[in-house]
């Protein structure tokens, strides 16, 4: 009986579609904490210990319930619009599982290894592109002139150095936000 139930459990498991690599289900557009392994490996590497959120001084890290599928249950995410990442890198240093790489708070390390997403400016919403000089996103950017530069009338232009921390989106005074982070999994 024992062996039969074991074999039945095996058969049931085989019927489950094998290890899909697509991003978690759901419509929520989210970021992983800085230094995270690619999204396809995140659910299998993270052990759900919660230390990244517990050490985050900005309380930017949240945890999924069931809304993004079973695979993503209890994994950390950031919604920059609510609370963005300040790139302190504490979460990667405390992560025991390797799901977040241990990085130091230096521009070189951050630029080389942090790929949360990339900012995108909606010129029809952005005040500076409407002639109302703003520049708040540029002032909020921790990597000024590497990730974001401003042109005429403080019009923001995203550069290749953008790591996707989201401080620009968090700071944008326009509603809805004219600058937003598109995660790399969504084609940014």
């Amino acid at each position: 009986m024992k062996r039969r139930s074991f074999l039945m459990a095996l058969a049931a498991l085989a019927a489950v579609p094998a290890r899909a690599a697509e991003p978690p289900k759901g419509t929520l557009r989210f970021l992983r904490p800085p230094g995270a392994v690619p999204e396809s490996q995140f659910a299998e590497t993270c052990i759900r210990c919660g230390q990244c959120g517990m050490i985050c001084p900005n309380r930017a890290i949240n945890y999924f319930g069931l809304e993004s599928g079973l695979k993503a249950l209890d994994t950390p995410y950031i919604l920059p619009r609510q609370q963005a990442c300040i790139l302190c890198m504490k979460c990667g240093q405390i992560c025991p599982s390797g799901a977040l790489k241990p990085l130091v708070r230096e521009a070189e390390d951050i630029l080389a290894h942090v790929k949360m997403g990339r900012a995108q400016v909606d010129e029809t919403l952005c005040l500076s592109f409407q002639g109302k000089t703003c520049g708040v996103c540029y002032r909020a950017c921790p990597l000024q002139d590497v990730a974001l530069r401003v042109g005429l009338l403080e019009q923001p232009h995203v550069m290749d150095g953008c790591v996707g921390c989201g401080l620009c989106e968090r700071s944008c005074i326009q509603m809805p936000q004219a600058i937003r982070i598109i995660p790399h999994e969504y084609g940014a």
Partner: protein
Amino acid sequence: MRVSPWRHLNKLRWVSLTLVFLMLILLPCIHVYQNLVAAHAYDLLPASDKTFYDVMERITDPFVTDPAKNLDKIKGTTWSGTFFGLRLSDPLAVVSQSAAALSVYWPFVVTALIPIALTLIFGRFFCGWLCPAAFLYELADKSATWLRKTGFPFAGDGKNFNPRFKYLVLAVSVIASAVLGTAVLAAIYPPAVVGRELYYTIAYSGAGVGGVYFLVTLLFDLLVIRRGFCRFLCPGGALYSLLGHYRLVRIQRKVEACDDCTLCNLECQYGLDPKRDGFGQECNNCSACIAVCPKDALAFTVRLRDAPYAGPGHLGAAYRRQRDKNATTKEGAA
């Protein structure tokens, strides 16, 4: 009457269980407090947060000069934590990750070495001495003992099930982790769930699906089989039982001092049989049986295997009857 020092170990165990549980409440509180400190806006806090801030400041003040730095020293749960730079992880977390990722991440394996070494020496001591879920299960079981007297149909003893079923749970969840590529064990292992849900409850908007899951396991314990989850279903208990099969430190009965009173068997929440030297790899060295033994016939020893059944206790009626019978047959033969 001789009083063995081992008798007091059970009290120490309750202190340990309580401390671990309180830490799981204190650490998320510290996290929230740190965030409030970092926000530099005490005056703008709602009254309840101000009270919380004051209480946390009172608790932590003797130990810290800078909450942002000093209070980062201890983080995490029993699943995986950081303790003044020392990283400790549950061996099951390593099994879980290795299975899900189908690869071994050595820096993570290293964090489980101390727990593995302790399990090799003390068996599944985690289950009796540290586990925050077992703390709640055991408290619930103690209260059920009282409530049962009011006639509520809590599960009693008697019902039994094969303790080897938990090895099947471990095997199936390891395979499920590998097939699905996600940490299945982290979602079904009660201490990991309890630590996480306490954190969510304190630092976020409340407990999630894990809280519901834990309540179901608690009801299973209370209504179906006494301490059923730990004994028959827990994948962690299964792993530690396997690791602790040849544990060095184990409880042993001194047959000369035993009077067959059966209090040990009644006390054992794992349904083991100390009275007949039946400990085995399931025993979590909790020492509850030692604490109730009126003759101090149970004590810890250092040996690799349990002693075989040594017969009825020498102070009991069964042994005396047998001895008298042997004496008469000997006289008859002579």
